[in-house]
């Protein structure tokens, strides 16, 4: 099995499309963070203006941690899109290249090939989220230094610097877990079709609909929201609350894991029965 995963990894990382996401992150993250440094945190001052009427602040809240936290918001739309580039190509890519028959005539079961491809998707997702974490956090700390972290969700929360690093670490681990659900959906769509464009567009379409239903505060959507995986995608954000809502995080992990499992099992069922014609 390890050898199969190794070959799948080689195949994946020899494709140029695998590096599109890395390239975009490598360009966008420095661009945004340098721009934020030049701009000097004016938008943060604007958010704190009402408090500054009564108080003055000592210390710098516009620091690397704050910028790195802001960059994590790319986990809502941008990073899922980039992950689908690879995850959506895992099975459909073989069909497009006409190599399905070639790999399936080997004395290896379809299930083993399927699992090795899914492992590759997991590894890619983890590496990609890890790349984002290291680049965005490392560069932000380098450019803007350290300090306490201000969170501007539902009021103002200041987290002491000593209490921040572990939150980022856990936040990115949970983000990778959430991204795996997206990757699994793209993987599932990839098992249906013979071109990778479909899974990418399909996954992003589903994501956008779910995101809108989750975010728009309409009463009509309230009953539906708990059944949508996007309702739990903000699990990484929960780590930055105080106190940390461990129960909610646990529930989110379980729901996202269940979705991932369902997507993968359905994809496996389709792949096993798939009539390979190319």
């Amino acid at each position: 099995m390890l050898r199969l995963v190794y070959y799948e990894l080689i195949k994946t990382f020899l494709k140029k499309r695998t590096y599109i996401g890395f390239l975009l992150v490598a360009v966008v993250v420095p661009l945004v963070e340098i721009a934020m440094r030049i701009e000097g945190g004016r938008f943060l001052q604007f958010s704190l203006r009402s408090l500054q009427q009564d108080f003055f602040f000592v210390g710098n809240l516009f620091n690397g941690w704050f910028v790195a936290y802001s960059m994590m918001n790319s986990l809502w739309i941008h990073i899922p899109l980039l992950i689908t580039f690879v995850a959506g190509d895992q099975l459909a890519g073989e069909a497009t290249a006409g190599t399905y028959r070639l790999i399936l005539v080997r004395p290896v079961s379809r299930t083993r090939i399927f699992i090795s491809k899914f492992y590759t998707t997991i590894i890619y997702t983890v590496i990609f989220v890890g790349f984002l974490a290291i680049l965005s956090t490392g560069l932000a700390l380098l450019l803007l230094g350290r300090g306490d972290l201000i969170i501007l969700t539902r009021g103002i929360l200041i987290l002491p610097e000593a209490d921040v690093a572990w939150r980022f670490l856990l936040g990115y681990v949970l983000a990778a877990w959430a991204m795996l659900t997206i990757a699994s959906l793209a993987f599932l769509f990839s098992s249906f079709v013979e071109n990778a464009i479909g899974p990418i567009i399909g996954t992003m379409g589903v994501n956008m609909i779910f995101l809108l239903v989750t975010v728009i505060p309409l009463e009509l959507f309230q009953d539906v929201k708990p059944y949508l995986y996007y309702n739990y995608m903000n699990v990484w954000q929960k780590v930055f609350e105080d106190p940390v809502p461990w129960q909610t995080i646990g529930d989110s992990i379980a729901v996202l894991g269940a979705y991932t499992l369902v997507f993968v099992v359905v994809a496996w069922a389709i792949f096993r029965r798939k009539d390979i014609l190319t």
Partner: protein
Amino acid sequence: MRLWRTAVGFVLVLAVSVQCAAQVLKAPDIMKNVERGFEKVQDFVATIEANVDMERVRIPKITATMYFKKPDKVHFSSSSFAMLPREGIVLNPSLLRERYEAKMSGEEVVDGRKLYRLALTAKEAKVRPSQLLLWIDPSVWTIARMETVPYQGRVLRFSFTHTLQAGSFWLPETMKATYDVAAADSSVKRLDLDMPASPQLDEIRRPTRSGSITVKYLDYKVNVGISDDVFEKRDGASKTK
């Protein structure tokens, strides 16, 4: 005999009146007494600890070092983020007397202590806040409470306790600043028609936060000769009233 009684009565009334007149202090005298307690303080360094309890704001306990130098130089340094009140963190009575006209506004008993209440009005239009209410504790001649409206819609109340430092200076030991939102003036009507108020006023505008901050002053070092250079750095520096 009747004339004798009248004369004695007159003398008694006169004596009591003179004594009463001598005991009633005027606002400028009270301010001078408060000032006297602070006049030997040229500068001080203190560690301050603050707890913020504001709506929609969560901040861990604040620790900072405060540097004060007369007449109005203040600087704070902290290894972490600190959020401190713009008003009332240090009150220099000399500046209050210099910038405000004080009038006696009565006496009040607060927590079993008799306090003098003074109403201070700014002498110049540019002085902010334009009005202050002070409650002075005559037992130690310190400011026990203060109330002001720093800007429209905000009511700010302070209560202070003081401690004797180096046997001769009464300096703040604790300060609690309470931030309230002033009630809307219901007497003002925009139109004579009976219709609900504009949503811009009541719904859309972000409400001012209410809450309080409690500051503890610790480890005073008085008259240590703080250099002006300490106050040059603008980050964390401000001027007191």
